[in-house]
């Protein structure tokens, strides 16, 4: 049975690694400026993880193959180096790769979180609610009107609770169910939760950020390719969570300007 | 192969009655050591819980809607009552340490001071209730503002723990009555440790409320 176990382990190692090596589950195309940092870090981690995973399963397989079914008087041996070697190996191997990935891998994190958006980044506000995303553009005056939760009226499509009658800034705000952005232009997306926790996730943008009720959060990105991409909610928010999505529509600058003009009318 | 040893005497420190078992000096059976460990472990866990409440308070305090409440004046009296109860308990405990028989003078003194501790403990609890009344009279209920919420929660949970201590004291008082022939000191020692902890905890909470709320 030990030999059989060894064979099963080898199969486990090979069959688990195969879909990765064969790239049968490829990452979605990267349309962001920082995504390549995440992708290369993922690649490096996968390589090290793969070596560790396959290595461990194969070593286990070999030991099972060699040391099961032995006679009761077969000599017992100790692994040369003993526990000391294992401790040193753990510290060196793991310690170094862990620290390396930990230290160098923060570039992607820093790019997303520690660099402020440029002064001329396009300001868009997003509101997440059960079970939809809405997006608000400040309009020609460049200012967002205030949000009044008591004025929210889904029936009349006043999702943000704007008060254009009394609030000048709100009069030219554009509300859309789609996040339309121009290509190659930095966007600063402000995140506002209307009711519960939600999360903004666009795979191709390599962006994910929770909407936290009561907190003013923002995430900035630059989309580098025209196209339509799914925005999905990744924070459990109620029964419609599975269906809560919107589209990121990246247009050329001209198309974007055209769209914006249409919305203003 | 099994070695045989003469049966050992009861090693738990005990008080005896005039015609009861002859008590021996404190040796410490494993059961008593375990109960002492148990009390300290329990104290550690309770401290951790209050640490969690405290950290929740600190986080909550950082928000813009934090307003201050006025400390109910009776709290100062309550603090004195609880501290006094710690003193009376100590007097009781030391009397008990000196006692060897339940009918002795030392034991009687221990009983009296224990009764005083009980009274002060109950007075503290009553005083906390009055504190809540005072706060309600000033318009601060549980949900009025985050400040009052924490005050009620912290003081209520603390009172629950005080009542556990009071129950232990009542049990001890019962055991110290002359009708029983033996009495385990370790129970008293552990109750004392617990009661002093509750006192120290109150000082912390009192100062916390004073400074933060």
């Amino acid at each position, binding site marked *: *049975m030990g030999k059989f*176990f060894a064979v099963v382990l080898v199969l486990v190692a090979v069959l*688990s690694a195969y879909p990765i090596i064969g790239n049968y*589950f490829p990452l*979605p195309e990267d349309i962001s400026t920082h995504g390549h*940092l*995440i992708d290369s870090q*993922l690649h490096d981690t996968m390589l090290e993880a793969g070596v560790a995973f396959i290595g*461990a*399963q194969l070593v286990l397989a070999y*030991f099972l193959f060699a*040391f*099961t079914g032995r006679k*009761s008087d*077969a000599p*017992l041996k*100790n*692994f040369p180096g003993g*526990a000391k070697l*294992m*401790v040193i190996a753990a510290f060196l191997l*793991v310690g170094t790769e862990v620290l390396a990935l930990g230290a160098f*891998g*923060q570039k992607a994190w820093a790019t997303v979180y520690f660099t402020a958006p440029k002064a001329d980044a396009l300001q868009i506000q997003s509101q997440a609610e059960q079970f939809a995303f809405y997006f608000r553009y400040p309009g020609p005056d460049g200012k967002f009107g205030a949000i009044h939760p008591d004025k929210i009226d889904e029936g009349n499509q006043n999702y943000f*609770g704007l008060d254009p009658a009394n609030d000048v800034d709100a009069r030219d705000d554009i509300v859309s169910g789609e996040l339309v952005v121009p290509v190659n232009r930095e966007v600063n997306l402000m995140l506002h939760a*209307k*009711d519960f*926790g939600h999360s903004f996730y666009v*795979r191709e943008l390599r*962006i*994910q*950020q*929770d909407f*936290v*009720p*009561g*907190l003013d959060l923002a995430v900035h990105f630059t989309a580098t390719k025209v196209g339509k991409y*799914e925005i999905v909610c*990744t*924070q*459990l928010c*109620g*029964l419609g969570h599975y*269906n809560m999505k919107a589209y990121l529509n990246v247009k050329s600058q001209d198309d974007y300007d055209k769209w914006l003009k249409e919305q203003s009318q | *192969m099994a070695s045989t040893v003469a*049966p*050992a005497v009861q090693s738990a420190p005990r008080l005896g009655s005039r015609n009861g078992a002859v008590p021996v000096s404190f040796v410490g*059976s*494993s059961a008593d050591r*375990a109960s002492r*460990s*148990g009390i300290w472990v329990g104290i550690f866990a309770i401290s951790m*819980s209050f640490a*969690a409440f405290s950290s*929740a308070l600190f986080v909550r305090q950082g928000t*813009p809607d934090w307003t201050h409440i006025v400390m109910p004046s009776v709290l100062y009296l309550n603090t004195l009552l609880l501290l006094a109860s710690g003193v009376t308990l100590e007097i009781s405990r030391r009397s008990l340490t000196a006692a060897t028989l339940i009918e002795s003078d030392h034991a009687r003194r221990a009983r009296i001071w224990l009764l005083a501790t009980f009274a002060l403990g109950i007075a503290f609890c009553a005083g906390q209730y009055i504190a809540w009344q005072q706060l309600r009279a000033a318009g601060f209920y549980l*949900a009025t503002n*985050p400040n009052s*919420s924490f005050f009620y*929660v912290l003081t209520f949970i603390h009172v629950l723990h005080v009542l556990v201590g009071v129950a232990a004291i009542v049990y001890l008082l019962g055991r110290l009555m002359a009708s029983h022939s033996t009495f385990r000191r370790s129970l008293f020692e552990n109750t004392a440790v617990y009661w002093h902890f509750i006192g120290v905890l109150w000082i912390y909470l009192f100062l916390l409320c004073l400074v933060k709320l």
Partner: protein
Amino acid sequence: MHETSVEPVHVHAPPQGFWRKHVFSLDHKVIGKQYYALALVAVFTGMFLSWLMRIHMVWPDAKIHGLELLSKNGAPGGVMTPEYYLSLLTMHGTLMVFFVLTNAPFAAFGNYFLPIQIGAEDMAFPRFNMMSFWTTFLAWFVLMLAFVIPDGPPIAGWTEYTPLSAVGRDAGPGMQWGASLWGISIAIFCIASLLGALNFIATTLDLRAKGMTLMRMPLCTWAWFITSCIALLAFAVLLPACILLILDRHAGTSFFIPGGLVASDRLQPHSGGSPLLWQHLFWFFGHPEVYIAILPSMGIVSHILINSMRKPLLSAKVVIYSMMSIGFLSYMVWGHHMFVSGMNPLSSLTFSFPTLTITIPATILTLIWLGSLYGARIQLTSASLFAIGFISMFVSGGISGFFLAQPSLDIYLHGTYFVVGHFHMVMGVASLFGVFAGTYFWFPKMTGRYMNETIGKLHFWITFIGTYLIFMPMHYLGLIGNVRRYQSFVDDYMSPYLWLHKDMTVAALITGAAQFLFLYNVIYSRFKGAPAPENPWNCTSLEWSIPSPPPWNNFGDRHPIVYHDPYQYGVKGSQGDFVMQDSPEQIIASGD
């Protein structure tokens, strides 16, 4: 053969009468079995729920006959509603994490064997012990009530993030009384666990037999002891969190609910609370909790591995220190569940480093287990198969954690099936393998009968292969961005991968069915299994020096004296290639 010393004072009187013997027993062995029975009920319930979930995920409109009996509102005509899927998901997680993974490896086996392995007659506080089981039972009962109330169980997941879990019915179905029952149940569970942990710690510190120094305790005892220290602090924090949540829900306070929220078209009457506060409190408990789930299994697996390889580990001391460091570090990493939660991004980095560092003791353990197998004489039994399988599973599950520990990668992988695959492999499989191994190993001691080895081995192979087939694909799905906690996959990018979900469902159903082999084996062998001697595995620890099943006070009227560490294998003993811990015979090396 067994040296003894005499110590006075029995911890409690011998049990008389049916109720004292079998129901409200003070005997740690009975209590251990009660915990195990509760865990069995919980695990089969949880497994059944996962079947329902997996079936629904691939066939969302399927009519599941009989489901409407479980919930009229949740599954009208047998077709599961999206909210009911989330209810089942919540109950699955809650039952499995609390009532299975904390109960079985820790409370059940720990209660049964820790006192015996240290040479004690019972736990330090038998009455508290009985109370802690029945309090756990009460917690389970309160939780299960959520199934019978009309609105159903809560839908916010076992993590019950606020404000979804705090505002009440406006959050959705099940979020009124269902969520309250959850909060009350878990608060009761906290109290039960605190009592239990207290017992374990006091017992380990003070009731060890003569000669049983801390370093001579078996590795599983060490694991239970370290786990109880972790549990003491972790549950002491969850309890306040649950209390504050219940107050938010019912007393109008705003610990976790900010102002200005509009849910179900109603402006919520709260203000100023912090959803992140709940996450911090919850995960401060939640992360140590997962180590509470895995550490006992690590100890059990080590113990069984040594016995089946007939040689000690490369260093028991290093294993003990590694387990201790894991326990210590487990308190510094909770923020890795919150990398993209909106907390300070700098905090995310500071949480990442201890998370990555925990890899070191985990690797040390793995390398020691692997390295110890070299040159051994491995005997494969159902118990040792699961123990060795644990190593494979722990490697697989642990390595995926390495990805998630890096905030940059977590940006992409958070909230996807990569996470689901990771925690199921370490907790749902590896930890459970420790429980299976322990069951096969200790069953003869607990009942005086062997379990059926053929069925046991079949159970192992189906489970080992089956769980790889279920949970390994989840990592691939995570890589393409498959979001978790979805009742079905309606996103465009998911359609090319739905076939994989179907495969996983089939694997889950088959693997789940194999668990009934285990259940049958346990029940049948209890009554009809082949009789087992006192020490069927030629094991060295103290539990194997007493009759099977043990008498009510474990060692009878004697109290053992311990002479050696618990892993004297590969030596020339009077009974074979081992020397028992309480045997005064000298250790003579085997000369090879």
